[in-house]
């Protein structure tokens, strides 16, 4: 065991000292934050781009229908104006031609640039809404009745705890948390699994492997590497969690100040809206608070380690079987397929976290690390199911490590030979 410790120490230190690791570890959360912040900033930039459209309205109804917004303004010109002169003047972004019977003839928008989908949908939905209302009125329905049709019902979800007390919950938050966790497991298993594989290939191509083999057992070599890399991954995860908490805290401290100011402005103008926003905010926050973080982090670490051990052992075996990275393709695909499948199906499972697809995929060990993490934030997985899934995962990673060790110890000393599946099978059977 002590030799596994020495190997683990080297594998860990070599990776943690690398510049790329330090950069990724400390920049990761910042990049993630940027992923959310930058689109918002960009949207703010886009809004500045103000476009005006000339409307040649033969129907005479459009003035009430098309309201200028902060993105678009409408100028209503004399419908008799000549299209060609307007084009040559080039004063407007586009010219909207509305015939008298626009319902059957349609509306035309002339412009030199291709108009964006936003402009198109803003105009067509306004006109469509107007048409619908006109027809309802013609059918003898009163304006007040039409207004009452624009219904919105607030649906708050409140979940009972075991003891019968209620707490606010949010399906959206459970979905988001589940998806992020599943994505992280998926990413960590692949990134660090392939690091194990590359490490083994490096030892083979460096020809240091036989020197090592004369000091330690191949199993110790493999496990030292697998566990060392696992610790690197957990280190990165821990740093990310801490940094994210710090960043969120910092963002709240600065941004919430602004929001408070905005709220107060709104408060003056519309006390009702203010209340609404505050309520919404409270719901979100309490839903976030009410997530069982203890269970989520605990299970995340369990499924990460389980899934990682299962796959990393296989990655190590592939690394041992081949001579260089280009030869890994044929073995990598079947290994990664279940994981990719699990991640793709995770989107369906989010929509129905208690269905039978969700059940089976979260029990099968090759997909359970990803799928179970999608389900855990919904807190609908029974203890029995969790234990079954966890037990199967442990049993399977013990099995894959055992299999991988057999391939590994034969493979690491084999140079310059193209390895087939039949060959691997022989190694497992005879494994001398």
């Amino acid at each position, binding site marked *: 065991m002590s030799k596994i410790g*020495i*190997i683990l120490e080297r594998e860990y230190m070599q990776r943690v000292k690398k510049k790329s690791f330090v950069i990724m570890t400390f920049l990761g959360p910042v990049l993630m934050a940027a992923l959310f912040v930058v689109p918002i900033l960009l949207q703010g930039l886009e809004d500045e781009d103000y476009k005006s459209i000339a409307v040649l309205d033969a129907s005479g109804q459009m003035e009430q229908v098309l309201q200028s917004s902060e993105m678009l303004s409408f100028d209503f010109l004399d419908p008799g104006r000549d299209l060609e002169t307007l084009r040559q003047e080039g004063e407007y972004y586009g010219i909207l031609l509305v015939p008298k019977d626009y319902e059957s003839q349609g509306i035309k928008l002339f412009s030199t640039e291709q108009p964006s989908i936003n402009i198109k949908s803003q105009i067509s939905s306004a006109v469509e809404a107007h048409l619908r209302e006109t027809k309802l009125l013609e059918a003898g329905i009163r304006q007040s009745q039409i207004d009452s049709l624009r219904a919105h019902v607030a649906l708050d979800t409140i979940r009972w705890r075991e003891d019968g007390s209620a707490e606010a919950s949010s399906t959206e938050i459970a979905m988001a948390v589940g998806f992020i966790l599943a994505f992280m497991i998926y990413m960590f298993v692949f990134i660090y699994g392939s690091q194990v594989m590359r490490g083994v290939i490096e030892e083979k191509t460096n*020809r*240091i492997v*036989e*020197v090592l083999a*004369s000091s330690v057992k191949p199993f110790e070599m493999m496990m030292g590497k697998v566990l060392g890399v696992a610790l690197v991954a957990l280190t990165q995860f821990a740093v990310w969690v801490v940094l994210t908490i710090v960043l969120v805290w910092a963002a709240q401290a600065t941004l919430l100040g602004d929001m408070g100011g905005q709220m107060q402005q709104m408060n003056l103008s519309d006390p009702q809206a203010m209340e609404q926003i505050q309520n919404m905010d409270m719901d979100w926050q309490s839903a976030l608070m009410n997530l069982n973080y203890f269970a989520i982090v605990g299970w995340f670490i369990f499924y990460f380690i389980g899934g990682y051990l299962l796959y990393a052992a296989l990655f190590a075996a592939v690394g041992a079987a081949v001579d260089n990275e280009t030869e890994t393709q044929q073995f990598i695909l079947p290994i990664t397929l279940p994981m990719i499948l699990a991640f793709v199906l995770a989107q369906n499972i989010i929509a129905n976290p208690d269905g039978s697809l969700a059940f089976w995929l979260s029990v099968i060990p090759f997909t359970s690390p990803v799928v179970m993490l999608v389900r855990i934030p919904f807190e609908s997985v029974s203890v029995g199911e969790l234990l079954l899934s966890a037990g199967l995962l442990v049993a399977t990673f013990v099995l894959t490590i055992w299999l991988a060790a057999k391939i590994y110890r034969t493979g690491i*000393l084999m140079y310059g030979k193209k390895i087939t599946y039949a060959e691997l099978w022989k190694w497992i059977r005879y494994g001398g």
Partner: protein
Amino acid sequence: MQSEIFLETRDVVKAYHRHTALSGVSLGVPRGSIFGLLGPNGAGKTSLIRIINRITAPDSGQVLLDGRAMVAQDVERIGYLPEERGLYKDMKVGEQALYLARLKGLSRQDALRKLKHWFEKFEIESWWDKKVAELSKGMQQKVQFLVTVLHEPPLLIFDEPFSGFDPVNAELLKREILELKAKGSTILFSTHNMASVEELCDNIALIDRSRKVLDGQVAAIKQQYKQNQFELELEAPGQDAQALFAGTAEVISDQPRGTARRLLLRLTEGSDSNQLVAKALQIGKILSFRELLPSMNDVFLQVVQQKTPKS
């Protein structure tokens, strides 16, 4: 209690699924000697060495170290320089040497102390913080040798140590091997290089196609394979050598050397070297006379070719 044979293999058999690498090889390496393991490529040398190092297990047979069956812990008593040897390219020399020494069971302090000694001996202290990738091939070989012997193992195994080493390092290696022997280490090495065998080895074993075909002391083997050939320098110009030695020896070659001549003779059945000298004295003045022993290269070729069915 110390046994005379330090390392022994008994009937070691190893078969891979397509061919047999070793079929019942038994060797005994005497304590404190240098043992050469010879054989053509693919004969099974590396397979045997890997079994002794416990990298692979034999199908049957035994390896004994110091009279006891080897156990896993014994690998710490072996220093092994494999044929396929290398180092981590992106690791510092010192760190790497320390790491490999610790894997051989040395504590960090012991390893550091010993490394300091060897780095001073080889005058390479300045390499400690360099990455291996920055070193030349020859420098890397020095480091490899150093980590092999660092933990002062009683048994050293070198697989093809001279292949891939540049001449300077090969000389260094020879010197160090002799020095290690003088300090009491037992050394086993496999090689193609017959000159190094004659220079270094006390005993050899020759392995050909998975079997041991010859073993013993180098001097004894030479005696065994000698062909009773003698080189004679003689002052006896102008005589027919063939006729002069008729009945005692057969003349293989006859070259004039100024006033003298150099004869290469093979004794005929039933005569001995004294008779040959007596004959020579009658003919002229003897300048030099010596027996020609076969080189290990001759023995190697003779044995291997004998056993090879038509090639």
